[in-house]
């Protein structure tokens, strides 16, 4: 069972930061992907128009979600697909378990689905004696390492190839000390071919579900979703309610944006459209709420449901790049995860909206124009108002309120602060000041503006 950490973002980030070389590598690699995104986007003259169109389509989806879901249900059923509705993670997991039982098997192969990570599906099924094998290479690696993915598109971006070689040595029987990516990928290919050919139930995620036609689209580069689904008797596709798009032609907009935003590729290798099951086989779709309808009702935060999971906001985020995905202690990390998670559990994820510089880069690269940094700022206010800010943060804010409401205290504090930073920086840079963990102090000025003004006014 993969236990998610109970520590807060700043603490977990500090752990990640112990290995400076790794942090630098992580930072530079993700920035390189961000640069590939830019290069790719700049080749499309109408890029900004596409973002605007995608944003408007998603706004329309949220404003008419009720009818679109009904339309999708009707069309999918007439295509021969079976539909299931799950109010929460537990119900989703129980439906999957039931479908596996009905197929009379105890093993399943699964391609990438962040929703099943959110629902804790693998852990649930393991407790019930069902073996799940993740087939995306990065996900298989973290699964063998008994870790959660650290990035929604690049699940093992936090791992070095030598560590992956060690994991494969331990679990897949290769010799020790192999770190060649080509060799390691080939090892996984051989291992997973055997899995694809022997599993009767395959689960995939859903990138887009088309209300107009009842079909759904799954995008991968590796081909693992298709290998699983087309070799299984039963294909289960799990989707959040927000994956709906109105018409098939809208895929033109989203498929142009998705992969260019994610990795800089013009499109994923495979963009598969599932409309009907194969003869004699079954497709089940599970439509999952798990807090999404609540988020839909939060005016300030409902836009987060427009997300198409490209992770552009991760790759550009100066905090994510230097703190690593595990520091967010939730299935979907990064800036978007930090506005989705507090909706699920405001207390548990109260730290996440603070794990940001509010620089706005996330909002600028988002292909569906979610105002991510503004929502992070709004969540901070909601969290403090609801009393979920950490005790040290609350004490600091209380002290700040006293100081700012008294001119005498304000001037005194300014003087004291300048003296302390200059002569006793350890008094600020210590364990009792979590704020400092995120920041470097500037050099302290000799005098404050009002002291300077007092002096210069006389000249």
């Amino acid at each position, binding site marked *: 069972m993969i236990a998610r950490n109970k520590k807060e973002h700043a603490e977990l980030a500090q752990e990640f930061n112990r290995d400076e070389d790794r942090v630098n590598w992580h930072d530079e690699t993700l920035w390189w992907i961000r640069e590939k995104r830019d290069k790719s986007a700049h080749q499309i003259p109408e890029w900004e128009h596409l973002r605007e169109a995608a944003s408007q389509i998603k706004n329309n989806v949220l404003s008419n979600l009720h009818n679109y879901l009904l339309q999708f249900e009707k069309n999918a059923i007439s295509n021969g697909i079976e539909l299931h509705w799950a109010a929460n993670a537990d119900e989703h997991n129980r439906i999957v378990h039931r479908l596996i039982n009905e197929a009379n098997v105890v093993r399943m192969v699964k391609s990438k689905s962040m929703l099943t990570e959110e629902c804790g599906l693998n852990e649930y099924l393991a407790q019930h004696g069902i073996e799940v094998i993740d087939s995306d290479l990065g996900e298989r690696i973290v699964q063998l390492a008994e870790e959660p993915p650290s990035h929604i598109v690049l699940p093992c971006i936090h791992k*070095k190839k030598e560590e992956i070689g060690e994991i494969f040595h331990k679990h897949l029987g290769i010799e020790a000390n192999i770190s060649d990516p080509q060799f390691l990928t080939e090892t996984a290919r051989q291992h997973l071919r055997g899995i694809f050919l022997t599993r009767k139930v395959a689960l995939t995620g859903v990138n887009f579900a088309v209300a107009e036609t009842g079909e759904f689209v799954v995008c991968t580069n590796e081909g693992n979703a298709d*290998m699983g689904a087309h070799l299984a008797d039963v294909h289960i596709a799990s989707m959040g309610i927000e994956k709906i798009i109105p018409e098939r032609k809208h895929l033109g907009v989203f498929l142009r944006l998705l992969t260019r935003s994610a990795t800089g590729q013009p499109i994923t290798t495979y963009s598969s*459209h599932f409309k009907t099951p194969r003869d004699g086989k079954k497709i089940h779709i599970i439509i999952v709420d798990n807090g999404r309808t609540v988020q839909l009702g939060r005016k300030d935060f409902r836009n987060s449901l427009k997300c198409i999971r490209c992770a552009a906001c991760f790759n550009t985020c100066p905090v994510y790049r230097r703190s690593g995905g595990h520091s967010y202690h939730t299935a979907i990390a990064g800036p978007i995860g930090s506005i989705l998670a507090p909706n699920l559990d405001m207390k548990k994820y109260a730290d996440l909206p603070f794990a940001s510089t509010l620089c706005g880069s996330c909002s600028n690269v988002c292909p569906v124009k979610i105002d991510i940094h503004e929502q992070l700022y709004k969540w901070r206010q909601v969290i403090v108002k609801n009393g979920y800010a950490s005790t040290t943060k609350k004490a600091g804010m209380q002290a700040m309120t006293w100081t700012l409401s008294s001119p005498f205290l304000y001037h005194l504090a300014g003087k004291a602060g300048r003296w302390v930073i200059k002569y006793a920086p350890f008094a600020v840079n210590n364990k009792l000041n979590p704020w400092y963990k995120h920041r470097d102090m500037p050099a302290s000025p000799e005098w404050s503006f009002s002291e300077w003004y007092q002096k210069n006014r006389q000249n």
Partner: protein
Amino acid sequence: MTSREKILMTIKANQPATTKLPNITEFDHEVEGSLLKFSSVLAGVGGKVAYVSGYPEIIRIILNRNDNNLRIVSPVKELSALNTEKLVDLTSSHNLHNVEWAVLNAQFGVAENGAVWITDKEMGQRVLPFVTQHLAVVIKAANIVATMHQAYELISKTTYGFGTFIAGPSKTADIEQSLVIGAHGPRSMTVFIIEGHKHAEGI
């Protein structure tokens, strides 16, 4: 109340006031797809392009490449000479596990991303273009559209149970972002473009 009813009811109560769908016809301005662009983008994602005069030339090229007499499967009528077994059994997915070459027709290509559109009608079995070690597809030079908008315009005139855009061989960069070709699906992808007058360029 069932979960379905509960979810739908909450959505109805919580969804914002209706907003309009945007007009996306503005993106349809590039009408013709460029063969040159298609070829260069496909090469950029690891695919190979070969211009051929027709199906007989494709047969010659594939047979030349199949030195070890490995299994070739093609549901294309004009390419039936390629099949290494007399009666190709496309009734089971699993018996395709050892296919070395699958050669399929594609309906069209998309210049902006090097993808080709193939549906279950061309596949015989849906797993075929994924399970094969090497994939080759055939398109006519005239059937290349500029962007995904025109692609969906064409798709809207057809029916299928399963359809997929394929852009290059299967790949992964999950290990330290090093690109490796041949993840779970084909280790290579060749697109044969039938143009009529041009001869094959090495693949």
